[in-house]
């Protein structure tokens, strides 16, 4: 019997008041905290008689250490960091400045280089970074500034009162697999906060709760997502120059799937490479980890990695929907920033700089709220205004219809993208609609048994152990670890659907889209179709794909006990 995690009821919870609680210590959350600290310092310097305190400003980070759950390619557009910390280049851990870009279209054995790098993919002036190391550094600045970062604590539940968000409840610790208290049980705290800033990253769980509760997404395009799978490689010297950026499209995907790869040369002969597969592919047997392994077999990539060693693996989803998918981002007592809101430029494949900028604007808003002692929508809504009049909107407006057109295939998408380039993002209509990715999933009955054109993308990979790897071996290199004795945090609302319908209709796609082997359909003669869903929750890398891609939308990912998760050192 699967028992799922939920906050214990009927217990007394310690209360902790807060001025601002920022849920999530990624680039958005840390930028918000740092900016807030700067504003308070400046204010205090000018107003010795009415000082504001930083004592009650908190960042909640579910990882054991700052940056441990941060994963991205990544390329940093320094625009917002220069605003936050002028001269930051001198102290931040930047791996290389981008020197060279190339975009390729791959076929199975060949490649075609685009003669002109499409403007969104031009990266001169940007930096190759490890987001994990960058956020570690940024986090250290936040702590130096006197803001408390609670690592190992997750935001488990929103506290609300009517239409107000009044705070956040942290995770219950020391709960066993049956949801019973262990001898070292510690209840999650009720943090009563004036302002709650949700900076949980892609598909935030509290953000999802908030959107559902207040029906925030009713006027938006549904958010759509991709899954990025990354491997970090150490290769022999001279294979790729630090700062060399390569993007690929095409093989191994067919025109029916959207996605592509990145290859970035970092310092010390390290290559960051990964494949993003949009989570709206038609064949439920598609396995994005398999796609990455297949991609590496292309002669160009295989040559690049020859004799090298894979040192780290990870995966994360990312919001592709763009401007029209962003819900209202502020209200009574709450603000949403970063990937949780959907501030990502899917044409440029960049979101870190937008996350940082959104964090800064949220800080300015929260600061005003503290000054006025009013954190109702009246004050916090100005965040929405700030975003609209900032370069966040300027940038995202130009690509507001980018991803939607790709829902109808690669070539149509390219056509529209081209059109949008010349019409300031408008394309054929001001607002292109979108549909949720999971709705694109076809039933097995409607697909060729052997996968047809997608045959090389479906099902698990065995791997050769040198260039390609099976999922478990890859997973081992994510360093993921959780307290074993705790309830399953992948909440499946109706396992009957798994056993009676999904097994037949889609064949249990969770086994394929999860990059961490969390989901397994095991033999069980007592079940109507002979299979039962079995979970390995401690494998989870917190990518949120299951919450996004499950065709029945019956999976809710909630944070497991704080401190657990992947260890994205260097990612």
């Amino acid at each position, binding site marked *: 019997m699967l028992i799922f995690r939920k906050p214990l009821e009927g217990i007394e919870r310690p209360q902790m008041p807060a001025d601002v609680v920022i849920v999530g210590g990624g680039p958005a959350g840390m930028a918000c905290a740092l900016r807030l600290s700067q504003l308070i310092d400046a204010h205090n310097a000018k107003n010795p008689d009415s000082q504001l305190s930083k004592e009650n400003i908190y960042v909640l980070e579910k990882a054991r250490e700052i940056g441990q759950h941060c994963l991205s390619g990544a390329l940093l557009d320094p625009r917002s960091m220069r605003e936050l910390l002028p001269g930051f280049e001198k102290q931040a851990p930047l791996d290389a400045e981008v020197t060279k870009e190339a975009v390729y279209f791959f076929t199975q054995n060949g490649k075609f280089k685009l003669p002109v790098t499409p403007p969104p993919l031009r990266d001169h002036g940007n930096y190759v970074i490890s987001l994990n190391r960058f956020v570690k550094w940024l986090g250290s600045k936040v702590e130096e500034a006197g803001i408390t970062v609670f690592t190992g604590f997750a935001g488990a539940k929103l506290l609300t009162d009517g239409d107000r968000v009044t705070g956040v409840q942290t995770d219950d*610790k020391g709960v066993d697999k049956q949801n019973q208290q262990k001898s070292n049980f*510690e209840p999650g705290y009720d943090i009563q906060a004036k302002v709650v800033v949700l900076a949980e990253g892609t598909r935030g769980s509290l953000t999802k709760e908030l959107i559902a509760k207040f029906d925030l997404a009713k006027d938006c395009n549904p958010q759509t997502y991709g899954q990025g799978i990354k491997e970090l490689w150490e290769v022999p010297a001279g294979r790729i120059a630090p700062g060399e950026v390569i993007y690929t499209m095409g093989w191994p995907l067919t025109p029916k799937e959207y996605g592509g790869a990145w290859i970035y040369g970092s310092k010390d002969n390290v290559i960051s490479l990964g494949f993003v597969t949009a989570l709206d592919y038609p064949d439920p047997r598609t396995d994005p980890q398999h796609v990455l392994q297949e991609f590496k077999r292309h002669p160009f990539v295989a040559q690049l990695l020859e004799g090298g060693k894979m040192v780290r693996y990870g995966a994360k989803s990312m919001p592709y929907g763009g401007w029209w998918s962003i819900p209202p981002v502020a209200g009574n007592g709450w603000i949403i920033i970063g990937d949780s809101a959907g501030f990502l430029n899917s044409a440029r494949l960049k979101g870190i700089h937008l996350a940082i900028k959104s964090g800064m604007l949220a800080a300015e808003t929260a600061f005003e709220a503290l000054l006025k002692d009013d954190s109702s929508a009246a004050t916090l809504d100005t965040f929405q205004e700030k975003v609209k009049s900032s370069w966040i909107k300027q940038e995202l407006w130009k690509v507001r219809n980018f991803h939607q057109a790709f829902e109808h295939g690669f070539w149509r998408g390219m056509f529209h993208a081209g059109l949008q380039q010349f019409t300031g993002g408008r394309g054929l209509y001001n607002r292109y609609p979108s549909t949720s990715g999971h709705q694109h999933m076809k039933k097995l009955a409607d697909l060729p048994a052997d996968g047809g054109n997608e045959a090389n993308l479906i099902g698990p990979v065995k791997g050769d152990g040198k260039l390609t790897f099976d999922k478990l071996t890859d997973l081992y290199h994510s360093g993921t670890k959780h307290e074993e004795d705790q309830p399953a945090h992948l909440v499946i609302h109706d396992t009957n659907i798994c056993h009676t319908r999904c097994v037949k209709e889609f064949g249990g796609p969770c086994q394929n889209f999860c990059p961490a082997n969390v989901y397994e359909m095991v033999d069980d003669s007592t079940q109507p179709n002979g299979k039962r869903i079995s979970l390995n929750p401690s494998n989870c890398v917190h990518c949120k794909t299951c919450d996004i891609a499950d065709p029945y939308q019956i999976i809710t990912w909630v944070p497991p006990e704080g401190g657990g998760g992947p260890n994205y050192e260097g990612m």
Partner: protein
Amino acid sequence: MKILVCMKQVPQKDAPLKLNESATWVREDVSYEVNEPDAYALEEALRQKEKHKGEVVVITSGPARAQQVLREALAKGADRAIHLEDNAFIGLDAFNTAKAFAAAIKDEQFDLIFTGLQSDDYGYAQTGVILAELLGWPHATIIMQIEKTDGGIKVKRELEAGYFQFVDMPLPAVLTIQSGINKLRYATLIGIKQAKNKPLRKVTLADVQSAIGANMQKIERLYIPQKMKNTEFIEGAPGEIAKKLVEKLRNEVRVI
């Protein structure tokens, strides 16, 4: 009861380790965590404090990053921390580390000193015992249970092969604590906040320099162990395989 807990920061258990340039130690750029046996020593100390009132002080030696271990201990309920802070402390052998600790605590009056069983990086299991000898205190190792008695304490020692032993000891004493004897407590949000205001005394290398001497042992080289493996396939009918395996178990592996 005034209890000192000696704690060490070590590379994370599953951290990928890289050798430094001289191949005499590992590179610094790795994730660290508290030495797991020390976490159990701390837990035991906190439980004793809860039972008998008193003070729990934590001490560590190492670079600035080692402070994290002390902060976590303070967040869990330790009262004070002592940090012998200097990169050079990493290179000291167990004897010198114990000497440095003894020097750092010379003005204190502890009833008990706990250490973890051994460290996850060196695995020497010596520092606690050496410290006891330097202080002239009795000690006991691999302790599972501690009870206060009129004459001092009664401890339960773990021996090999499922044997145990109770030992009566006077105070003050040094105990090395077995892992896994208790469930480790979590630090709470309040605990973490309060930890910031708890006293943390820094001790420099210069402060203890006169107490320590030259190391008496040296790691000449550190390397990845190479295992030459020639897999021998055992074939035949199940009965034959059984006989062949038993022959190996008897003569090669020597377990029968």
